[in-house]
């Protein structure tokens, strides 16, 4: 085999590997493209307990994915969990929107569901959701159930 053919084949091999790498980064691991990053706004919500919520968990409204969670921190003054939601700019929500932590299916991953209110003002960058509902902790619910049962007897 002459040198030219070898070089062509090696070139093809490297190009194939680059295509595979690009596909893995964009299509599989969803490495954020810079275009999308500008098209979002961030709002915050405080929860008493976020359960198993993680960064990058989805934020959805009416079952449609509208954004993701970009950061989670703990407010040591009010003792609440502060969740930063990154919402795509094309979706607007009223200021009295409520956020609750829900679970997809019985054992599925947790996500934040937004329930829009009726206010005419909309949430903007840096806004905060006041009405929040914490995650359902299965152990607490079972504990309450057992407690109420034993009270009855």
């Amino acid at each position, binding site marked *: 085999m002459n040198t030219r053919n*070898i070089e062509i084949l*090696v070139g093809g091999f490297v190009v194939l590997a680059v295509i*595979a790498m690009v596909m*893995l980064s964009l299509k599989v691991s969803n490495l954020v493209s810079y275009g999308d990053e500008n098209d979002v706004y961030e709002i915050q919500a405080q929860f008493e307990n976020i359960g198993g919520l993680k960064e990058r968990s*989805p934020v959805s409204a009416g079952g449609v994915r509208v954004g*993701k969670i970009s950061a989670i921190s703990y407010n040591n003054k009010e003792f609440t969990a502060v969740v930063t939601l990154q919402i795509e700019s094309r979706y607007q929500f009223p200021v009295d929107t409520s956020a609750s932590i829900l679970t997809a299916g019985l*054992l*599925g991953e947790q996500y934040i569901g937004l329930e829009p209110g009726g206010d005419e003002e909309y949430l903007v960058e840096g806004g905060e959701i006041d009405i929040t509902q914490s995650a359902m902790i299965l152990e607490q619910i079972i504990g309450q159930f057992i407690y109420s049962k034993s009270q009855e007897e």
Partner: protein
Amino acid sequence: MIADKYLGKLQQIGFKTLSRFARVGRGSLFLWQIMTGLLYVIQRPKLLIRQLYYVGVQTLLIILVAGLFIGMVLALQSYIVLVDFGAEDSLSLMVSLSVLRELGPVFTGLLFAGRAGSALTAEIGLMKSTEQLSGMEMMAVNPMKYIIAPRFLAGVIAVPLLTSIFMAIAILGGYFVATEMLGIYEGVYWSQMQANVDFYADLMNGMIKSLVFGFVVVWIAVFEGYDCVPTSEGLGQATTRTVVHGSLAVLGLDFILTALMFNV
């Protein structure tokens, strides 16, 4: 004398231990010599491209076939378990995480040791047996720079490239089975994956693994060839050792790297 017999045994143990250590020492010096030869290779890319063809392009076919089938089998097997829990939507996550974190780097390392590593050892070993390497030294051509270093560098470059191809084709194989055979929606397959696979934690760690595996497997392969006993028997043994030691090194290092990377 009984004492003599025991001393003889002791001597055997000592001899074996020392020769093992000597081998490790020779291997390390060998690696150092390769490193000093790398500059020579970078200045002569033609040498490198030819070796990339032999270790990279010629390994491509087995990587493509293995990747495709592993992705498809993984999807089928995971589906059987996941469907019991009503979690078949997570199928793509199962496939992609297993492939990116473990199967991609490990399988590519093993296949590379078997396909390209053994060929490297046999080639270099035969050059040594037929005294081509000594002949080069006679002509003041350093075989370390001209023969070993291009093969080493080509292997180190080829393994991560092959790994990324393996990963991509395995995920596509899983996609094909999931959507065509198991009736999972296309959007669910990709979105579950995109929401949960992290670029750095999963993909990059997998690529780092493949870089380490490539380095170790190629090092073992060229060293076994260079260090082989220059007989037909010695050559056969060296080739076998490349495959066995290369595969064991990949599996052992995989455990260590996984423990370090995913802080279990």
